[in-house]
Structure formats: structure tokens, C-alpha cells
């Protein structure tokens, strides 16, 4: 799949809560086909410590309007700079990067997102919906206040929540949710993104229950295009690049 370097104009940058920002970006170029869980590499200008680009999932795509949307969580200097960018300014992106979630065979699919890991799930659902598949979402947050874009997610599927403090949905993390612990409900496939401990636990669960499970992993990236071999994940076939052979891996191939 061909990759591009394009400038995008910031249409808006909205703060969603303390740590999260929503960036809508427009390009005059034609958008290439984008698949679920693919990501962009954003150039961060203007700070000596943000020398390298930053990988960010594609949260939403609008082909008619030539826009993509990113959901940014402030983690350090680079994401802080992104969070303060203003509409009318430009961002340089390399995209679309990485492989993607594979197509399911039925709509008994569960999209699990934890914290920032909800980012790729919106577009994943929108993408699957084109094929008549309506997913179920299971989204985990710290508390009610940290829930991101609930109405938007509700458009594309049934949404279940967990919060760590129980202030919304079920209390605990996604692994504790009754959906996953009810033998009556069976999913053909789980797609997940989130903190590594969550993904590991989910992987154990999926393997023991024999549910197909694909996870989108993070890793430190220098290039994003398979050139530097910095972003490796250990698998049963040896070191694989998260940026090109991932970010999506079937849990059965992972050696955590």
C-alpha cells in the first residue's frame, strides 16, 4: 500500500478533557484508502526533544470532506505541542502506516479499547459497518469524566463501559466486564487496543476461550516505515516491526 507525505490543515482542535484533544485535519490531496488500526506519523516542529515523528492512530476518516481525525492524549512534549496547535496551522503527516485489523466473518465481534486505545476503534467500527457488520464496543476508562465521545461511538455499535471507580458502566477494567465473563455471550473475534497489561490479560482470556483476538500494539518508533528496525515485537516468527508488520497482531503469534 502506497504511503504518502502530505500537509494537513488543522480544521479544529478541541479539548475533550484534561488529557485528551481531538484534532480534525484536512488535506487538499486525495485521501488514499485507509484501513482500521492504521496510523500516521506526525512531524512535531519546534522542540529539540521532539526530533522524531510521533505515531498516532487514525481515529476517524471522512473521504467526502478529505479529513482525518486524531485523538491525542498528552503523554509528553510532543503530544503537548500537538495539543496546542491551532486551527489554520499545518501538520505534516506520513500515512497510512501499518497493517490493519482483518475482516471478521460475522458481526459477533467485540471492539475493546482501554484509555487512549479507544482511538482506532471508532474508525474500525465505521469501516466494518460498510460491510454490514455492527460491532459491540467495550470501552474502559478511569472514571465517568474521562469517557471520550460517547455519542459518536454509540452511532456505530452497542457500547458497554467500565470505569475504574464505577462512576459509569461496570466497575473495574474491561477484563472484569460481564460481557467477557458471561458464557452465554459468544464473540467470534475480539479486536483490542490499550495498555499492554490489559492486552496481555485479554490475550490469555481469548486463548483460553479459543476466541480469535487481534491487538493493536504500541512501540517506540523512529521511522514508522520499516526502515530502522527499532520498533520490534517478539513473535513466534522472531522480531517483527510494529510499524509495518503491525501494529495489529493476532495474539496467538505474540511472545510477550
Amino acid at each position, binding site marked *: 500500500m*502506497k*504511503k504518502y507525505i502530505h500537509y494537513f490543515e488543522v480544521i479544529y482542535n478541541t479539548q475533550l478533557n484534561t488529557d485528551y484533544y481531538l484534532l480534525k485535519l484536512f488535506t487538499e490531496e486525495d485521501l488514499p484508502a485507509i484501513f482500521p488500526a492504521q496510523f500516521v506519523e506526525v512531524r512535531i516542529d519546534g522542540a529539540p526533544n521532539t*526530533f522524531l515523528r510521533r505515531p498516532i492512530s487514525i481515529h476517524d476518516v471522512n473521504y467526502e470532506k478529505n479529513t482525518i481525525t486524531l485523538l491525542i492524549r498528552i503523554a509528553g512534549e510532543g503530544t503537548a505541542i500537538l495539543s496546542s496547535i491551532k486551527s489554520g496551522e499545518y501538520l505534516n503527516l506520513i500515512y497510512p502506516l501499518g497493517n490493519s485489523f482483518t475482516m471478521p466473518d460475522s458481526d459477533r465481534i467485540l471492539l475493546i479499547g482501554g484509555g487512549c486505545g479507544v482511538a482506532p476503534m471508532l474508525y474500525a467500527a465505521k469501516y466494518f459497518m460498510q460491510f454490514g457488520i455492527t460491532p459491540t464496543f467495550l470501552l474502559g476508562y478511569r472514571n465517568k469524566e474521562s469517557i471520550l465521545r460517547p455519542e459518536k461511538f454509540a452511532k456505530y455499535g452497542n457500547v458497554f463501559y467500565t470505569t475504574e471507580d464505577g462512576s459509569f458502566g461496570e466497575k473495574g477494567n474491561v477484563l472484569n466486564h460481564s460481557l467477557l465473563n458471561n458464557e452465554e455471550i459468544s464473540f467470534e473475534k475480539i479486536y483490542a487496543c490499550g495498555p499492554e497489561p490489559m492486552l496481555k490479560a485479554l490475550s490469555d482470556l481469548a486463548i483460553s476461550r479459543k476466541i480469535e483476538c487481534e491487538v493493536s500494539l504500541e512501540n517506540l*518508533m523512529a521511522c514508522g516505515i*520499516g526502515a530502522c*528496525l527499532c*520498533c520490534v515485537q*517478539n513473535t513466534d516468527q*522472531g522480531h517483527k516491526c510494529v510499524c509495518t508488520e503491525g501494529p495489529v497482531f493476532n495474539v496467538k503469534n505474540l511472545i510477550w
Partner: protein
Amino acid sequence: MVNLNIDFNGLKLKNPILTASGTFGYGTEFSDFIDLNRLGGFIVKGTTLHHREGNPYPRMAETASGMLNAVGLQNKGVEVFCKSIYPEIKDYNTNILVNVSGSVVEDYVSTAEMINELENIPAIELNISCPNVKEGGMAFGTSCASAEEVVKAVRKVYKKHLMVKLSPNVTDIVSIAKSVELQGADSVSLVNTFLGMAIDAKTRKPKLSTVTGGLSGPAIKPIALRMVWQVAKAVNIPVCGLGGIMNADDVIEFMLAGASCVQIGTANFIEPDITIKILEGIEHYCRKFGVKDINDLIGALDS
């Protein structure tokens, strides 16, 4: 018209822009962004006799105007290179160099021998300076005796252009350069990465799985430039300069310091089309300053 052709001790370059090993994959990773045929050449990944999985992750840490890496020569080994990768890339109309790495002299020799057979590989870059493998690599490049030993052995079996890549982690890079010249190197390239380290103050852990790694990027440019200047004055073989090059002015500076050609490394990660932008920048510089032949810049520092 500006002449950008350079005769690099027999290696014909259409321009002085090459890419640095380990930062440019096998070239094809960049074909979406640039026309590889426009490069003076590209140098593929560090290739070893046997398959190597490289180091565990994390392998990368960002630093001020630079980065540390601890990839550790992950590659599928020279046989896979010759059989599967070489056929895919051999028809590019540019110089393709293989960066040959190893941990014992015999491995360098065997690898070089196999690459010698590949018609469309006009040169190897002998990596005696990788800081990321325990067993050797850099150790060869940090003493004259060991550098001589490996170059001498490889020279016997390798008949084409032999470029030797020097380590900057030394007291006296000039004497190492002279040693490898004496053993028949056709050129030297410098610098490889500087041995560095990064720590996460919060977790108290090293940021790299191997604790130390190789520093590259603009941070190292002033030191790399100084070394190129010192070496170019001291040896009679041509010098390929690298270390932190980000734009056309940087290339001009390396050439003024004495480099006959350069390699672009870490910059490829940030701008995958940087090589071509730099090439155009060099043409612009030459037109602006009335340079008719790029060779006129080599070593033309006015000091």
C-alpha cells in the same frame, strides 16, 4: 549545468548523496517517497554471515537533536540477502553497497566473499564500528591492530571497492584511518554512531534494553565534521562523510571539510524524501554560488 558526478576512487557516483546503512532498509522502504535511481547510491542494512535477531526491545530512545539505537544488526544473514533480497533491488540504476558486519574476522571474510560475487554490488562498506553488538563490531574499529587485521583479511577476498566505516569512539581516528588505508581500503566512511546511554528518571531504568546504544542525528554533527576534516587531510583515499546531516548546507560543510561524498542517515526517518530535497538543495547552492563542478568543493575549506 552543475556537474555533480564524482569519481570516488573508481566508484562512479552520479552525485554525492548516499544513504547510511541501517537507516534506509533495503531501499525499497523509500520507493513510495523518492526515485531511488536519483541517488548517488544507497547502502543497505548491516549484513552478517548468519541470521541475527538483534537486541531485545526497547531499542530506541530520543535525545536532544538525536537518537540512540540498539538494533544490534538484526538481519537475515548474507545468504538470504543474496538469494532473496539482491534480486529485488539489483536493477536500480544507482550504486548499491552492502554494509558488512561481523563479530569475528572469518565472518567478515566469508560475508565479503559472497557479496563479491554479486554483479550489481560495486562496493561494500566494512562496518568495524557498530557499538551495538557485544562480541565485536566496534572493537575492531577502536584499535589500529584489529582494524588492520580485519581489513587485510577482507581485502584478500574482496576485489571491488572496499570502503571501511570508522568508529568515532576513539582517541585518534586519524591513525585508524591510516591503518586501514595501508591495508588496501579504497575509501573510508565516517562516522558511525557514538556510544551513548539514556535513563528514565522516573522508573530508574535504562531506556535501552542493552543499556548503551549508538547516538546519531544532528547532535553529533560537529564532532563528525571535525573527524572528517582531520581524516581527509591525513589519508590519500577519499572520504565519505556522515553524521547528523539534515540539509544541503550540512552536505556542503562535510564536503568543504574534505568528504568526497556523504551519507544521509537518521534524517531519512523524519523526512523519507530528504535525500532528494537535499540533492535539489545542493544544485541550488551550486547555482547560487557559481560552483560549476561539485568536485571543486571537496576540501575547499578556507581556513
